[in-house]
């Protein structure tokens, strides 16, 4: 052989062209639309990071994260994987490491949108001030090994996360809520609403038993609560309406309709009359492919994207969302997220990711509610507006002890809150990390 073979020529050509292309391409992306995450940024060259080697590993990660045409190649990569290795069948399982979770933590760049599109209501704080970067999440306990895998099944064009009952985690949730009860129970009523996920209601045909009963799990949880905590039974009403469009196919959340049924259960528990849906004006957002689509990249889901129906509040309100010390006015149904690709669910409560938030309504009934919620609460809270004068919203993942009261008991006291509601979905009860941050809210002294 006195010449280079074609594969050797192609090899040299490809690595050289890709190498040069990546140097020339100075427009490095900050986020991956496909994966819904912030990409690694170019590390700073410092003596310390060079010596411990972290500079190099960060640089390598940055290089592949900002590789040319990365999002497009990612998509091709998924297609290749599905065509080569995965047999088409009526159901398929996707296994994923949950420690790299997407669970509805909006990405860092949202800050920017906010700065551009909204004016801080408090003019005395200029937008340019450096936001304290102190620990945004109250906990950094190590991730519990063993519950590191999640299973997603795709069936009939729907992605479903299989529910695996973990007794320890449920005990822990009850323990955390009982702790809340000890601290605040005598002063305000506490309600707990657990949102089941779609795995309970989807027809799994031959594969019954693949997912654990959420009804039993909720019953187990209720049996562990202190007497003073009132459990809201959202399960039965959702089960009654399970053939309606109460869950997204391509996202792990419930639809606003699902949230509405849960809201009626809450009202029933309190002995109040729920508002009927026909009083609301709706907006429609088409072509929603959400988190579980991103996770599974499944064609059958892609072919039939979701539609978001959002119900616009009819009472006058002011929604103040705090980001650390800054305060922004936001819309309850925030259409700026309607144009994103995977994040359309964030229209509800304008992402619901404030350090804490306050909704004041035109009502003057003196009722002040605190909702401690995960993202399932985002589509739930809007229905509460007609019933309260003030609604405070806290997501334990974003609360910051330095900006507001040190713990929830003080928070409740200082705001004059007279009712507390927990809205969390099944998988977060099953998820240590989330529960630890919930515990942190009340534990901090």
């Amino acid at each position, binding site marked *: 052989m006195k010449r280079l*073979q074609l*594969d050797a020529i192609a090899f040299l050509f490809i690595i050289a062209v890709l190498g040069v292309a990546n140097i020339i391409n100075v427009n490095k992306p900050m986020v991956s639309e496909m994966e819904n995450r912030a990409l690694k940024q170019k590390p700073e060259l410092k003596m310390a990071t060079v*010596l411990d080697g972290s500079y*190099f590993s960060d640089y390598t990660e940055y*290089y*592949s994260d900002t590789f040319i045409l990365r999002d497009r190649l990612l998509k091709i990569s998924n297609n290749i994987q599905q065509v080569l290795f*995965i047999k088409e069948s009526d159901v398929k399982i996707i296994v994923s490491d949950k420690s790299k979770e997407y669970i509805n933590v909006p990405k860092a760049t949202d800050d920017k949108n906010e700065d551009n599109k909204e004016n801080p209501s408090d003019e005395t704080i200029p937008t340019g001030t450096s936001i304290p970067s102190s620990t945004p999440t109250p906990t950094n306990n190590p991730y519990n090994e*063993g519950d590191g895998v999640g299973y997603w099944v795709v069936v009939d064009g729907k992605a479903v996360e299989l529910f695996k009952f973990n007794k320890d985690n449920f005990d822990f949730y009850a323990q955390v809520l009982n702790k809340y009860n000890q601290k605040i129970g005598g002063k305000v009523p506490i309600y707990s609403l657990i949102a089941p996920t779609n795995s309970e209601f989807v027809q799994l045909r031959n594969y019954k038993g693949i997912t654990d009963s959420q009804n039993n799990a909720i019953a187990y949880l209720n049996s562990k609560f202190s007497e003073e905590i009132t459990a809201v039974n959202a399960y039965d009403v959702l089960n009654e309406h399970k053939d309606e469009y109460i869950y997204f196919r391509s996202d792990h959340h419930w639809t606003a309709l699902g949230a509405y049924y849960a809201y009626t259960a809450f009202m029933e528990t309190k002995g109040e009359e729920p508002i009927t849906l026909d009083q609301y004006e709706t907006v429609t957002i088409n072509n929603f492919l959400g988190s579980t689509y991103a996770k599974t990249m499944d064609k059958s889901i892609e072919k039939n994207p979701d539609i978001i129906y959002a119900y616009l509040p009819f009472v006058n309100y002011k929604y103040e969302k705090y980001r650390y010390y800054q305060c922004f006015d936001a819309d309850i149904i925030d259409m700026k997220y309607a144009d994103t690709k995977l994040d359309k669910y964030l229209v509800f409560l304008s992402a619901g990711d404030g350090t804490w938030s306050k909704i004041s309504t035109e009502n003057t009934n003196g009722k002040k509610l605190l909702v401690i919620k995960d993202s399932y609460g985002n589509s739930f809270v809007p229905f509460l507006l007609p019933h309260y004068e003030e609604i405070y919203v806290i997501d334990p993942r974003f609360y910051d002890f330095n900006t507001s009261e040190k713990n929830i008991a003080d928070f409740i006291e200082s705001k004059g809150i007279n009712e507390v509601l927990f809205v969390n979905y099944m998988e977060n009860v099953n998820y240590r990390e989330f529960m630890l941050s919930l515990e942190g809210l009340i534990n901090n002294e």
Partner: protein
Amino acid sequence: MVFSNLFFLCVFLPINLFLYYVINNNRYRNAVLIISSLAFYAWGEPIWITVLILNAFFNYFIGVSIEKRRDKCKRKGILVLAIIANVFVLGFFKYFAFFTENLNTLLDINLPIINIGLPIGISFYTFKSISYIVDVYRGEVAAQKSPFKFLLYVSLFHHLVAGPIVRYKDVEQDINKRALSFESFNNGVSCFIIGLGKKVIIANQANEFSKAFLNMDYSRLPVLGAWAGILLFAIEIYFDFSGYSDMAIGLGKMYGFNYKENFNYPYIAKSATEFWRRWHISLTSFFKDYVYIPLGGNRKFHVRNILVVWLLTGLWHGASWNFVVWGVYFFILLVIEKFVLLKIEKKIPKIIWQLYFVVVILVGWVFFYHTSISKAFQFVSIMFGINASSWSSPEVRIFLNSYMIFIVIALIGCTPVIKTIFGRIKGSMQKKQIGSYSVDQLIKSTVNIAILIVSIIMLVGQSYNPFLYFKF
């Protein structure tokens, strides 16, 4: 740095190849190789580069001084001290924390546990250096006179961080003067691409898929799930490690070095004995030539010698008791095979042998995978239906149904079938030409290019994926 990484592929390698080929002088080429190898190592382990360089100069000096001396006792004395020094350094980095930890538990004392971290590749380059000084002592190879050429041998990035354990005597000629040819370069590229594909297309997927079972709560793991999980791990570790070796060998050829094969289809073996003749050959032969035979081989203390080799093999893989158990497990198997099974080899039907091999290898990997021995035993008992929650489960059924194609493709990749097919193609197509290329070459090139493109695309989607054998 690792080979299956976009930065290596698109930055390091093209620059390196360009400099290497643009310079037409062996001395400068060596300089390019040394500098880039040190950069390769420093990329991620900047401090430990000192250990690497000290190791190289120390052993260079030992080689020269052994050769200089005529007196047999002195030669032996130097050798023994040098081996002790090498092993001590390796032991210090690799086993010190493990040792103090166990000593603390054993004697109920509280020695501080110093965990300095393991310099990457130290297990590999220490063994390379030891093989060199022993070979010089035995007179099998002349000592290298140039410290830089010796540094080149120890630090060459092809086999620096994850093997193979290339012997100095095998590359002595290449280090002093190597021939570059298109043929060698072509073969090298082909080898490298196949290794890359093994790692990126098969091993990394197998790793993803195996999590479904191996990360499961074992109290709910069904029998079938346990077998599927460990089978996927067996696939992963073979494609991962042999892929790395292929890439190392391929890089060697691109630069004019010839390294021996490190794997020879280990999963088509029929016994544990045969498996170890085909798996990580450079390690097995190291222990054979430098431990087993000097101890007396099969002439005296045969069983003891086997035990020593397997304890060392186990420990070499990591400072953890599960690797010791794994080593002893193979010691027991090898002794049983040697003294019983292989003596009645012909009387045992082939199918029984194959079944036996699959079971013993997969059980072996269970101990390799689990750092916790109790978890490993729990896993093995599930495999054999003891304390298992069930035989199968809907998840496992769906899973196996979806991924069956992958498992079948991977298992075919473990056998020489594809190589045989290419052999046939070559036989029948060699004479046919399209332009100046022969048809068989064109077919091979097309397949390789496809593997390369698919690998690069899949690499983009995979975050940092170090090699399994990286930590040894």
